[in-house]
């Protein structure tokens, strides 16, 4: 059996949870078994996960799960897997997944593959998955041979598929440790989709000259419904918040569309973005290295090109 930890934020599932269930369902099919979902805490409409292939949804909810603690969540996932007899555990490769995955693997003495982007192939008792390594500069196929196997799925790696109908929800009673994390405050920017989950990203670099010029990036992002990002030096000098910094030492992303304006395309920048499906580069220097990694390029002054592109996007949306 495959157990997918379907994480909910404020009780609601995001696309990444649907991707993880789709992934788990396909994995279960390859193994000839079924996929069930585990939800933790108070969750709305958990049975809806059945639409993406989960045959049953379990929920663990207690005082200890009211706020996030990596130890409590890991115990819930590992103990649920043991109780249900699930040998493959799937989760999302996001901040929650990264906080608990290692704990789950250690608890089950399991081999693990974090941040995978393909459905496993099955060989004997082993599973082989594909993941990006060297921050996007290469791919590795990793075989896991332990009895329990823990996998986390990178965002935007697998298209969500609807295969079934709502599933029944059953609550699981597990002995959980007490939480050791006291949450003082949670701040989440509202509105924009967080960078790791974004399908459309508009990014600016040092070519923008200063933070006061970011309106040309913001306007295009607004018109597209995209999330904004930036190169490292821009975040280093506080033109933009550091969580917008993409690249080898920043956030690694794989959106459908990455538009880079005023970014030269240094190897460390490319490492975090070259898994994007389509890359558009706007740079006044025809020799900028980024053009070699681009699908579409515009050689020109970004202060003229971006407003025109914004207008063209608006015209397209209006038509």
């Amino acid at each position: 059996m495959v157990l997918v930890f379907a994480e909910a934020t404020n009780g609601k599932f995001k696309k990444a949870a649907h991707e993880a269930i789709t992934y788990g369902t396909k994995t279960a099919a390859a193994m000839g078994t079924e996929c069930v979902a585990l939800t933790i805490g108070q969750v709305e409409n958990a049975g809806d996960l059945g639409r993406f292939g989960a045959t049953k949804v379990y929920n663990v909810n207690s005082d200890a799960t009211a706020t996030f603690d990596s130890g409590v969540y890991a115990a819930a996932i590992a103990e649920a897997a043991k109780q249900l007899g699930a040998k493959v555990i799937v989760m999302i490769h996001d901040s929650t997944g990264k906080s608990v995955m290692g704990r789950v693997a250690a608890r089950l003495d399991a081999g693990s593959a974090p941040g995978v982007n393909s459905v496993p192939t099955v060989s004997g008792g082993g599973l082989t998955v594909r993941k990006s390594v060297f921050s996007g500069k290469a791919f590795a196929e990793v075989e896991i041979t332990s009895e329990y196997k823990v996998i986390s799925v990178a965002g935007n790696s697998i298209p969500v598929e609807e295969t079934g109908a709502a599933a029944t929800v059953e609550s699981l009673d597990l002995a959980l440790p007490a939480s050791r994390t006291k949450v003082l405050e949670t701040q989440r920017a509202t509105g924009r989709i967080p960078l790791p989950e974004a399908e459309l990203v508009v990014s600016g670099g040092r070519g923008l000259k200063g933070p006061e010029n970011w309106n040309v990036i913001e306007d295009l992002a607004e018109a597209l419904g995209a999330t904004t990002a930036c190169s490292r030096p821009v975040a280093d000098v506080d033109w933009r918040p550091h969580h917008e910094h993409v690249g080898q030492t920043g956030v690694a992303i794989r959106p459908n569309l990455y538009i880079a304006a005023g970014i030269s395309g240094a190897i460390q920048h490319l490492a975090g973005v070259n898994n994007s499906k389509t890359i558009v580069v706007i740079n006044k220097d025809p020799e900028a290295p980024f053009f070699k990694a681009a699908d579409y390029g515009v050689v020109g002054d970004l202060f003229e090109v971006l407003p025109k592109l914004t207008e063209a996007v608006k015209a397209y949306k209006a038509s």
Partner: protein
Amino acid sequence: MKLLVCVSKTPETTTKIQLTGDGSDVDTSGVKYIMNPYDEWYALVRALELKEAAGSGSVTLLNVGPADNDSVIRKGLAVGADDAIRVDAEGSSSLFIAKQIAAQAKEGNYDILFFGKETIDYNGSEVGAMVAELLDVVYVHEASKLEVSGTTATVTRDIEGGVEIVEVELPLVVSAAKGMAEQRIPNMRGIMMAKRKPLKVVPAVDAAVSTKVTHYDLPPEKSAVKLIEPDDMTELVRLLHEEAKVI
């Protein structure tokens, strides 16, 4: 305050990754190595700052790896760590590495175990959490801020589109992200002193390895870029919609 900083060795960031002919391995000839940036820039420096603020204590570096790694460990000593331990083993899986670290940590009784949020080679983001579980200690991942007062730590962790501020009791396992500290460049005195600081080499404890890279490949080459005239953005939008199908 007794602090442990776990450090990993990674290829230098400008490295162009090349593979052996059959893709069975990464071609490491000519590759230059550095300390994983998150470990060096943020974890190590914040540990040093906490020790300096407390006016007492120690910062120990720990690496699981072969003797080649000593130069990277010495760099950490030059930045300011007091001493180092190297577990003499090829670090070939995350759980294997975590078990080595946990075995050393049990003996050391550290107040805080520092990790980087991920390595820039295998991008696992999992060793810290594994060690926390093996030691049954609280873990906070991807921390961009860490303050300690007495036995209580206040940690800001990065989450999608924001931050969460939490309070935990020591001992603590924490992984460091950008923001936790500012990189320190070692000076000549530090480099000279590093040569005389203790670097203890210990054997590995028994642990199974149950993950293996069976094949590597490189991202496909991009076909040549399609250039669009700067005053024809309608054409770009058309291509993004009709050809690339991304909007």
